[in-house]
């Protein structure tokens, strides 16, 4: 592995890439700096520097306790949606990707074509038909209305397809079959361990998608008790425009920061896995 390690580091290239880094970071820095400001100093200070008292901790406390701690409830809802939605999406994508990679079956060619074709239909236009269907089934305003549509991740299916094709040698499956293992047992015992890095990668992507889901819950949910974080934050943001409603931009900003932190943490902690998942072992040669 590693001629790369022997290679000479380049200050120039590092400096040039650093421009990109700064571009990526500035808005996040803005978010952090402004989450340290109170509602008052938010409006009368330079956006990209600290000002007034360092209110980060009081902002966090206020965010978590405002309106009887509804933020915590939203956080738990989001976790529920992520665990069931993203977890289920990963499972379905893994099963489907495995089948596409390792089985030849009737209609296989059509599967991905249909998936891509359907994804091209603007989701906003499907909102109403979907709502009416779900409503008839009594699913609206329940967590299922958010979770069920989250179960589909076309990109996840695609990733697992490519990953399974390479990660699982055909011989291995043949060998398992020769040993008399059933198809499901072969998949669970032989293939899933090999697919682990891919599964971590797909689950991260679906997690981001579910965590950031906004449009669908907006249509499906009315009861703030079921809101995910994105919808809840937005309702706080709107509150400034209702009479008698308190302007809580500082809580919106701090809440935004708290919303993205768990995702960033997940990315950093699972870095090793998702990179090997995406890179599919190439570096391990």
């Amino acid at each position: 592995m590693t001629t790369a390690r022997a290679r000479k580091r380049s200050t120039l290239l590092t400096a040039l890439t650093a421009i990109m880094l700064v571009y990526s970071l500035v808005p996040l820095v803005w978010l952090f700096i402004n989450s340290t400001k109170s509602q008052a100093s938010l409006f009368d200070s330079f956006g990209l520097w600290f000002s007034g008292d360092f209110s980060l901790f009081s902002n966090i406390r206020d965010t978590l306790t405002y309106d009887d701690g509804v933020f915590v409830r939203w956080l738990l809802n989001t976790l529920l949606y992520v665990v069931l939605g993203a977890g289920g999406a990963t499972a379905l994508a893994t099963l489907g990707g495995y089948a596409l990679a390792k089985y030849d079956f009737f209609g296989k060619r059509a599967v991905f074509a249909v998936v891509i074709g359907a994804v091209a239909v603007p989701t906003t236009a499907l909102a109403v038909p979907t709502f009416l269907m779900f409503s008839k089934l009594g699913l609206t305003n329940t967590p299922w209305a958010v979770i069920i549509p989250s179960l589909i991740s076309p990109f996840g299916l695609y990733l697992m397809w490519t990953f399974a094709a390479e990660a699982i040698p055909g011989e291995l499956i043949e060998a398992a079959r020769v040993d008399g293992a059933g198809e499901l047992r072969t998949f669970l015992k032989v293939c899933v361990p090999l697919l682990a890095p891919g599964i971590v990668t797909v689950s991260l992507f679906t997690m981001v998608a579910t965590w950031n889901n906004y449009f669908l819950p907006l249509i499906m949910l009315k009861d703030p008790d079921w809101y995910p974080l994105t919808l809840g934050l937005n309702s706080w943001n709107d509150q400034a425009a209702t009479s008698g409603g308190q302007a809580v931009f500082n809580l919106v900003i701090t809440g935004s920061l708290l919303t993205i932190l768990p995702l960033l943490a997940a990315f950093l902690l699972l870095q090793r896995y998702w990179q090997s998942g995406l890179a599919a072992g190439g570096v391990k040669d």
Partner: protein
Amino acid sequence: MTINRRAFLRGTAALGTAAAAAAALAACGSDDDSGDNPTVSANDVDAALAAGGTLTVWAWETTLKQVVTAFQAKYPKVTVNLVNAGTGDKQYTALQNAISAGSGVPDLAQIEYYALPQFALGKSLVDLSGFGANSLDGTFTPGPWASVKSGGVTYGLPMDSGPMALFYNKEVFDKHGIAVPATWDEYVAAAKKLHAADPKAYITSDTGDAGFTTSMIWQAGGKPFQVDGTNVKINLADDGSTKFANLWQQLVTDKLVAPISGWSDAWYKGLGDGTIATLVIGAWMPANLESGVAAAKGKWRVAPMPQWTAGGAATAENGGSSLAIPKLGKNNALAYGFMKYATTGEGAQIRVDNGAFPATTEQVNADAFKNKEFPYFGGQKVNEVLAQAASGVVTGWSYLPFQVYANSIFNDTVGKAYVSNTTLADGLKAWQDASVKYGKEQGFTVN
């Protein structure tokens, strides 16, 4: 009581507006036009309150929380489930979707005055005549009371009102020696003087706002929307509309209004630091200034709305909302019981005490209300001015039965005047044309 604007939907992926989709999808949902009006006596309502039950109320108005607490204490068998299903347009979308689907419809919903005719026309709301709502004549101030009627039928009870007044930053006015404008001509002169003295300061901010524009036309005596059942006349070139367009064009052409959209953080910032020196806006504004622009405490004052003729006292409504009973709600009698409690007498008083601007004559005229001194406004008796404004609302105004849609395309048309060489008059013409076209497509007889 929301501010009647699209702008507050900032930050939302859904710029949704009311999907008065009921009709469109009624075929797929349940039947929502049972023709007969229920007759429910006061005794029936009392019986329902005593019997108890659960009510679901969709509203974003914040002071309703205290009302619910008091109501449940008074009627212990009733449980009120207060749900914030979104603010304004978003809530209408949710409501229309629920009505279309025929399930999940609340027992009571908050609906702004401008949107009420649309729901009324869609036959989605209970006609309150059967509940004896007509006996409430005189209970409410004239502006809101007229607003909850559509085609002579009462569809809701007014919850709050927004008679307009001039909010101004006294510190900025004093600094530049500007007198408080009593007429629109003086207002334009003040705008010029202020901006000349301080190029960073503007008399107000505006990026095109349907609610503000229609209210201004209303005050100027315009009646651009005439509705008689399904016959609609739209004339955005009538005298009132033209008066407004000519006035405001001067400010826009000379760049005397700050290009800051209402309710954005920049707007709050501008209200705090003197960039935006005045607001001509509904009477619900004090609570927003107090919470959103706390830093400017002591600087703001309230004066009567500038007039078209010196010595006049004409005003218009800006925003404000009602409570209405969707037909698909379950317990209409109980819903009416809560609605009446929340909008009149005790409930109205609780809401006023918590900062709302009342739509009831009793509360508006109460001495305690009028004499209340506002520390935020330098001790001024703000409600005196606002109560005065409530009595000056020009009569005879009506909104379109598809006003929610019309407002949603306001910036597509009139908005052009703010970012190009199009004039406001041309913009209003384009708005009219687009609204006429839509009305015809929807089966109305227009113009």
